[in-house]
């Protein structure tokens, strides 16, 4: 008799297990798609286990994508366009957020995430997450363009970090004349035909007091200033302030020579500092960090921001769990983990840049705080990727000198207008 009751119970449990569990209860699994995290330490597994501990019944499966940006974009587009519910939370490059939001692929988080919850993050990061009238993601990590300089060399000649590009050119000339080292270059930056060139050019546009997209949505609202900014970049190469090869230089190609002590200045991202300060680095202790210079007669310099945001797939079957995961990863606890030693990422929560433990792991953080605060996002528009790929060859043509800046910009503008007219 007892045995039969046991059997019945087991059967009932089995049947219960087959039925769809009501939302919010029972064990569920959510899938987190993200770029492979570079650097010696991956903070994600530890964070996910902590999330599971705090949310009993929720399991998170983490599925890394390849680290190349193009492949991640392609994967997301194909799958989201196919309305897949196979992943719930995704890590997005900031420049894709408005694009995916426009396509209707992301869950609008604004009913859950109040403005107060975004306030602790840097404004440039928040700007990229809030497009139109929605909140399409929570900022997770960020990058900001900064100027590194050789503090020992500048001090030797009685100089401090340059405020304008024109001053930088003069300083580079003085240091190089004094050092008489033919292998010492002036300033390195990213001039290869790729996204990095667009970022560098945008920063020169801003420093000249103009931008790529006007407030009224017009492309290149002030072509003259834009042309003079591009002309200045070409001038850096022509005058030998930058070596000719910057026209093929990407982040790593420019970071290394500076790290070997072979340039006075380099424009790069925060990750480079950790590499300049490794124990066997020739420039350890001799690197200063400054805001990107402005242009004389233009505006103060501002670095461009990059980074990744956490978003929720609109087709998710578990919106509550997915939103909880996004908020957890973007929380103070979640971002503390990416400010830990050995992680090559920088958080978006401003307070962490003065946190004792974080500063011990990354001594440059207080300095980066001010630069990130003044930083600007790339144009927040669903058309950004199309604009960038159209502009890359034209900017490159101006920088290598096969087109005059005015010519390159006029062509870019015509082409952009054609492309955008086909989409509206």
């Amino acid at each position, binding site marked *: 008799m007892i045995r039969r009751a046991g059997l019945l119970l087991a059967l009932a449990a089995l049947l219960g297990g087959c039925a769809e569990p009501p939302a919010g209860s029972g064990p569920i699994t959510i899938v987190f798609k993200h770029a492979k995290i570079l650097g010696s330490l991956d903070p994600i597994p530890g964070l996910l286990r902590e999330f599971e501990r705090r949310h009993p019944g929720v399991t998170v499966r983490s599925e890394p994508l390849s680290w190349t940006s193009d492949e991640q974009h392609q994967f997301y587009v194909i799958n989201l366009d196919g309305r897949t519910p196979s992943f719930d939370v995704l890590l997005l490059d900031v420049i894709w957020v408005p694009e*995916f939001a426009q396509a*209707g692929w992301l869950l609008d988080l604004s009913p859950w995430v109040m403005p107060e919850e975004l306030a602790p993050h840097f404004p440039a990061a928040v700007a990229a997450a809030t497009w139109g009238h929605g909140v399409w993601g929570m900022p997770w990590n960020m990058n900001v363009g900064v100027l590194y300089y050789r503090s020992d060399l500048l001090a030797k000649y009685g100089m401090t970090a340059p405020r304008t590009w024109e001053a930088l050119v003069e300083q580079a000339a003085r240091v190089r004349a004094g050092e008489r080292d033919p292998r010492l270059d002036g300033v390195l930056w990213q001039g290869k035909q790729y996204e990095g060139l667009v970022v560098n050019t945008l920063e020169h546009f801003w420093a000249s007091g103009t931008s790529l997209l006007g407030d009224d949505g017009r492309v290149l609202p002030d072509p003259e200033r834009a042309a003079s900014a591009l002309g200045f970049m070409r001038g850096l190469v022509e005058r030998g302030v930058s*070596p*000719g*090869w910057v026209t*093929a230089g990407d982040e790593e190609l420019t970071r290394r020579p500076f790290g070997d002590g072979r340039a006075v200045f380099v424009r790069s991202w925060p990750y480079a500092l950790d590499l300049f300060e490794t124990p066997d680095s020739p420039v350890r202790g001799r690197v200063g960090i400054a805001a990107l210079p402005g242009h004389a007669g233009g505006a103060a310099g501002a670095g461009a921001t990059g980074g990744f945001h956490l978003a929720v797939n609109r087709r998710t079957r578990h919106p509550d769990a997915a939103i909880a995961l996004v908020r957890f990863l973007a929380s103070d606890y979640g971002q503390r983990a990416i400010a830990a030693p050995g992680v090559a990422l920088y958080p978006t929560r401003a307070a962490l840049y003065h946190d004792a433990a974080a500063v011990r792991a990354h001594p440059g953080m207080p300095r980066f705080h001010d630069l990130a605060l003044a930083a600007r996002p790339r144009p927040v528009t669903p058309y950004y990727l199309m604009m960038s790929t159209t502009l890359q*060859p034209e900017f490159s043509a101006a920088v290598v000198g096969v087109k005059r800046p005015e010519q390159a910009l006029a062509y870019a503008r015509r082409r952009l207008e054609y492309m955008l007219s086909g989409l509206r």
Partner: protein
Amino acid sequence: MTARQRADRRAGLAFAAPAMLALSALAAYPALWVLWLSLQQRVPIFGIARFVGLDHFVFLAGDARFWNAVRVTLVFTLASVALELTLGVAVALALQRQRSGRRLALSLLLLGWALPSVVTAKLFEWLYHPSAGLVNVVLGGHAINWLGDPRLALPGLVAADVWRTMPFVALLCYARLLTIPIEVYEAARVDGASRAATLRSITLPLLRPILLIALLFRTLDALRAFDLMFVLTGGGPANTTETLTVYAYRSLFQTLQLGFGAAIGVVVFALVMAVAWAYLRALRGAGVAA
């Protein structure tokens, strides 16, 4: 037709059917789909899907970037295939002469061919490095801006492609050389033919069919070249290394203009088919079973 012949024919069709089916599913269907896509404006991100007929082709006809890509593709193909064939034959002849260490030479030769092309590209990225690169060090320490100079980037890519695929031509030719009976050469020597005459009248004519096949393969590959430029220069500087396939990739996968990108794909397809057809005719003329 006898009953036997008819049965053979049926059996032949039955045997060929799986291959035909696979080909039509894997090649014909996608090709037709791309053709259909190329007649549409389709941008999933903006929810755009409408029929535009030949609009994309009309735009391409007046698109400076497209004609630049056509020019880059043709220059790259002509230069790299010509160099690969010349060097390939030279290396095959040298291998044939070689007395010892032939096995080692063959394996070294295969190395370049066996490397995935992205690995080759990364390798050349360091070889061409302006200050630390082996190429500049060997050339006397000049800081030559290989990949950032609009005049040097394409030649730089051609050199990388030749390094990578010349072994393929060399091995094909070498295999053919091994099958030329030694008596032919002996007879030539008896007749007092010079080395140059032997090469011109015996070796090269006998290599001709295999060279045509190598030419066909290499040309079709070079017309579709993508990975080297994608990794090394991204099509730059100033689009001087942007081939048709790179242009198609940028439109299709980076900016997701599926219709427009497909139109470029159709042009590449037409170009490759035309070249293949011309070669196959030449091959038939040369008496090689195609």
